[in-house]
């Protein structure tokens, strides 16, 4: 039994989510191969070869893999699926985009967002915004899976010494093309990988307040910044700050929810955090039902106080 893991990378370096996905593969058991598909992705492939527990790296290098377009990447995965019992990718926007396409082309189900491996064919995944956990068993010959990274501790990025095999590129299907990207630039840790997250909601009232109040706190803590959907919708911060059922799923050591009411869709994205701190002026706010430490009061007074106390 061999398992193919689809690496997430930017050609230069491997994304952390790949390490959690390899960890899920290791739980299933069997030889783990990492596919690095990209353009000029030699550095990423070299990093992939060092990942603990990886038996082989498959590198597919061609200009038409640069943009990670779903049509081309899915076709490549399907063309190389032979011999694998499982194909895994992180449940990132990249993995969610490509893997259902792979599954449909293989005529198998896709199992989304697994948080635990019960056996080689049985997995646990959240449904209903995490209000229930379903244990599902697949009867398909190949299991196509996306992995919720918060469910699996990452394997070591170093220590492995896998061979890199180069894969023949498939044709460019030319069904779509990338016109451009607007990526959020930040010196802060990535939301998905941060140990501490400072997250703000509609209670902050404006983009200006969000930045003026939360950035100094995040700076002191070395934290990533996050937000509720309401804060993103109101334009305080870009979309990729959103935590929740339909945003990012995070599980840091500490999650500060500031001016966030705690709607189920928001809780779905952060309730597995180790420690939750809530600051809200409404003592009845649902966020307090999941918070380890709640502070009732005006955030405009409490947040600066907290920042100077750190």
């Amino acid at each position, binding site marked *: 039994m061999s398992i193919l893991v689809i690496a997430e990378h930017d050609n230069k370096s491997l994304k952390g989510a790949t390490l959690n996905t390899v960890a899920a593969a290791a739980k299933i058991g069997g030889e783990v191969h990492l596919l690095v598909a990209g353009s000029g992705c030699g550095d990423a492939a070299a990093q992939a070869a060092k990942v603990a527990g990886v038996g082989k790296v498959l590198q597919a290098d061609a200009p038409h893999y640069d943009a990670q377009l779903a049509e081309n990447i899915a076709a490549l995965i399907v063309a190389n699926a032979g011999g694998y019992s499982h194909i895994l990718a992180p449940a990132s926007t990249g993995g969610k985009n490509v893997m259902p396409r*792979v599954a449909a082309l293989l005529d198998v189900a896709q199992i989304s967002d697994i948080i635990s491996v019960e056996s080689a064919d049985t997995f646990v995944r959240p449904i209903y915004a995490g209000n229930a956990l379903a244990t599902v068993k697949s009867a398909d010959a190949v299991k196509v899976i996306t992995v919720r990274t918060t469910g699996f501790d990452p394997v070591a990025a170093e220590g492995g010494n896998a061979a890199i095999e180069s894969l023949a590129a498939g044709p460019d299907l030319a*069904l779509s093309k990338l016109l451009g990207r607007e990526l959020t630039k930040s010196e802060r840790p990535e939301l998905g990988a941060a140990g501490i997250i400072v997250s703000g909601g509609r209670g902050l009232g404006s983009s200006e307040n969000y930045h003026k109040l939360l950035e100094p706190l995040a700076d002191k803590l070395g934290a990533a910044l996050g937000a509720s959907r309401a804060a993103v919708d109101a334009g305080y911060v870009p979309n990729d700050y959103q935590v929740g059922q339909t945003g990012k799923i995070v599980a840091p050591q500490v999650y500060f929810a500031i001016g966030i009411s705690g709607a189920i869709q928001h809780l779905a994205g952060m309730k597995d955090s180790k420690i939750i701190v809530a600051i809200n002026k409404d003592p009845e706010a649902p966020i307090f039902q999941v918070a380890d430490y709640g502070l009732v009061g005006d955030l405009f007074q409490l947040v600066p106080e907290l920042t100077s106390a750190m």
Partner: protein
Amino acid sequence: MGSQARLEKHKESKNSHRSIALKILVPVKRVVDYNVKVRVKADGSGVDLANVKMSMNPFDEIAVEEAVRLKEAGVATEVVAVSCGVAQCQETLRTAMAIGADRGILVETDAELQPLAVAKLLKALCDKEQPTVVICGKQAIDDDANQTGQMLAALMGWPQATFASKVALADGKATVTREIDGGLETLEMNLPAVVTTDLRLNEPRYATLPNIMKAKKKPLETVKPADLSIDVAPRLATIKVSEPAKRSAGVIVADVAQLVEKLKNEAKVI
């Protein structure tokens, strides 16, 4: 609208149909309302759906709204809503038609439908209806699968643009801005294509009473999976459904000093 006016309108749409027909198919799923906090059944067989409010999947409302706006802008000529599931999905289709979809198709079955099965049903309908664009929701808020649109695109051999926050159709191409982990990206793709909606694509309108009434008279066709020769048997068996671990209730701290003290000495996280 008087019958004469309706006739004129019909002719008009027929004419434009001939020149630049652009049909949009919108799959809409009937799900537990997003405000409901579901409970897991004691026997672990599933969640309790008895007497629970059901609504259209919020992402599908956004999809219908987008399709209707494209029609109102003169880009699309027809909007067809499709729902797969039990007879009550008719209500979901009526809601779509009240927002502005022209007609509805119900693929009626009591069987459990998983995303691959839905994608196959939708493929059969696409083969028949020949839409230029299919706009799905990005994810159903019950199964949280986030698969159907991508699967349909694969089965059709079409390009896809998931998690759309902006859609433009022109000159046989779709230009779509997508919400991705690091920010935004814009793709251009050939049509036909599948688009899946993200939350910020638009804000769906409320259906007005007159439009709800009008929707009752719009055509609603019913087919069965067998009519489409599709095997909808599930590929995944649900062994059990359980409740997630509850967080133990925390404490309300008196002030910032106490919070910092607890974070340092009790939780030892800073």
